[in-house]
């Protein structure tokens, strides 16, 4: 009695995975040696870390039938805050200050997320508008803190997180990749096996129902957007680590890439559907495409056209699958 359901659920996660394998195989066939080298795989993984981690948070938000357009701005804010804290007088690049900077950045984003959730629930404004507004506000604040400049920082251990070759080489991958993996496991478990996750699905599937069944919808939404902010903050720290400077103009429009990753991975903007594993696969598909296109020396515009087509194509295939299921 239980099998068919699990089978179906697996299918919807396997779909994007097959897509990833296909894209990878395609580029592997076209540029054999360079593309499939272990080093390049490490590069691709590292390049997916930022979008991936942010996509974990966005998955929760999208499953709950929300959207967050302020993610890119939040990432920029984090890089600037991290840099600003590292530059505080009395700060030294030991263990402690970078940790403090990290905490400040992540906390700020968690706050932004929770605030988004608060405005959405308190004033009953659609998330698209609220986060469209906070996208601009947060970007403005980032520029303000950064004095409209990139903020250089002293060398510190945070900047080693996104190295492709980790310093103790037995780590195989950089710390960022491992961190993303850990967050993947935690987020996936949260979404699938906890009350939080169940309520996220229930709210996305039918908010009224959730409310009548005693789910504290408003509070849950604040938690969901806050969680989204938290993960975005971690992604922002990774972005800082990637850039080694605070950059208030970074990650413009990145939210659309992130939403695309979630959607390619099976998330539905009408809520109630989506998986963390799917989202990371979506992020990987896009990273492979970018990397592979550069390897092939394809011009940017070809990449853009391909990625655009894949976004629509992925949803199309997902839909056919659903239809098949309903019919069968």
């Amino acid at each position: 009695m239980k099998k068919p359901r699990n089978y179906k659920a697996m299918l919807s996660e396997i779909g994007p995975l097959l897509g990833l394998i296909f894209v990878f195989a395609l580029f592997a066939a076209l540029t054999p040696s360079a593309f499939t080298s272990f080093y390049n795989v490490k590069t691709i993984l590292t390049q997916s870390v930022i979008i991936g981690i942010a996509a974990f948070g966005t998955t929760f938000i999208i499953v709950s039938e929300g959207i967050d357009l302020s993610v890119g701005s939040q990432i920029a804010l984090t890089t600037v805050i991290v840099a600003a804290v590292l530059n505080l007088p009395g700060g030294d690049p030991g263990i402690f200050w970078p940790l403090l900077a990290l905490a400040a950045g992540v906390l700020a984003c968690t706050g932004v997320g929770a605030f988004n959730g608060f405005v959405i629930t308190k004033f009953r404004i659609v998330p698209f508008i609220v986060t469209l507004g906070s996208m601009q506000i947060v970007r403005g604040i980032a520029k303000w803190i950064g004095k409209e400049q990139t903020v250089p920082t002293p060398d510190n251990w945070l900047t080693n997180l996104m190295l492709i070759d980790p310093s103790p080489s037995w780590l195989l991958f950089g710390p960022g990749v491992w961190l993303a993996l850990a967050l993947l496991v935690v987020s996936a478990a949260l979404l699938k096996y906890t009350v939080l996750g169940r309520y996220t699905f229930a709210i996305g599937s039918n908010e009224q129902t959730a409310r009548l069944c005693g789910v504290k919808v408003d509070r849950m939404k604040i938690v969901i957007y806050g969680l989204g902010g938290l993960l975005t903050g971690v992604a922002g720290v990774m972005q800082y680590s990637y850039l080694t400077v605070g950059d208030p103009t970074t990650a413009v429009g990145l939210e659309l890439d992130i939403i695309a990753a979630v959607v390619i991975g099976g998330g539905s903007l009408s809520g109630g559907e989506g998986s963390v594993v799917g989202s990371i696969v979506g992020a990987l598909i896009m990273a492979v495409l970018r990397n592979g296109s550069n390897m092939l020396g394809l011009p940017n515009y070809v990449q853009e056209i391909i990625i655009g087509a894949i976004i629509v194509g992925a949803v199309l295939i997902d839909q056919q699958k659903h239809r098949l299921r309903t019919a069968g």
Partner: protein
Amino acid sequence: MSSSVLSLEGIRKSFGPVHALQGVDLHVRAGEVHALVGENGAGKSTLMKILSGVYRPDAGKMTLYGAPYAPANPLDGRAAGVSMIYQELVLAPHLTVEENVTLGDEHARYGWIRPRTREVERILGDLGQQGVAPDARVSDLSIGKQQLVEIARALLFDARIVVMDEPTSSLAADDTQALFEAIGRMREQGLAVIYISHFLEEVQEVCDRYTVLRDGKMISTGRVMGTPVSRIIEDMVGRSVDELFPSGDHALGDPLLDVSGLQGRRGVPANVCFTLRRGEIMGIAGLVGAGRSETVRTLFGLDSARSGALSIRGREALRVAWMTPRAALDHGLDLLSENRKEEGLALNLSLVFNLTLSDLRRYSRAGFLQLGKERRDGARWVDALRIRAGSVEQRADELSGGNQQKVCLARLLQQDNDILFLDEPTRGIDIGSKAEIYKLVHRLAQQGKAIVMISSYLPELLGVCDTLGVMHKGRLSAVRPVPEWTEHRIMQFATSGYDA
């Protein structure tokens, strides 16, 4: 036994200018099934939502098991042991049956959910639904089964008071019986059940006592046993309804619509044929999910057909597969949907926009709308059908349910087509308005229109229609004059597909 476990006293509630409840008292005892009846908009659902914590009353007080009770939200209501089955389906379609049944009542340790599959299976078994798998997605179930999932949720919950707001409005007969048995068991366990229904037969079958609401006030209360139905009806509508169903003849004329070999994409409808004559009111009976709605929707071009032909006024046959709603309207067909909120009204647009939407050609010249003419005609229909509205510019969602239904009907009247498909035209409509709608249908037939009326309420089919067909799993029985049918015969075909 005789003391109240639940007392509501002087409950008042207004929504802006609408005074939904104006000082209602209600006393419910342990171990009784208490019927709450009244016209549409009488305030039944509002009262129950106050009880469950969805709304807060403007005035009045509630006592539950002797203690004051004032829930701030549904969670408080549940915590106090009030379990509610809402009138509109309250389900998360993406979740499984088990996830829906346990929603809000998950057993968890440190936030990690532990499955309750056993319990859910037991409850479903109690409702006679061994066939429903706990891990099936709710959106894959039929409406009837979905209704049962919601009932199961109320039963799983360890409640002291169970409120059921029109639980049987889309249940099949045997599922209704299973529900009644479950209600019986609750009564034995000493729970209090509040039961809302527009079907007074059901009230007589399962309820011990009743309370009648009218216009937000309590009119009467008493024991069901020994109270004549006519008395209850009189209390509900404020006058005696001696003849619910209209009488008077209308002659049947030439064939208007001829349907042959209608086959739907999913196998429903299955090879449906019938002929409809001028002045004929043809009823279609059947269990939920038999394919009645699908039949008329397919004819109207809303659902796709695999094959089938229809001929109108004896002209050459058209292929149903090519039908679109626009073409259907142009050929003189019109449809009243069974679900006015989802398919029938543009809720945030004005009443007059809704009235003329299917017939804008009449109100436009060279693509430009003639707003004045539109408004004048709209006002006429509002008067003719006694639609209660501030103005024709009022938004449709500001009207009460019954008035919304009238707006939908007015759209059909305004369109003035000859062949009308009325799908559950009185669903959720109170008995007084029902009588008005029956009269209207009758008048249309007298004007020479042909009507197909779908209903799950047999007495109304038998009382209003000239001819009747029954559907079973997509097949339509022979269409016969109503006197040739008996209730027994109808149920036999509906449940077995076998026509004696």
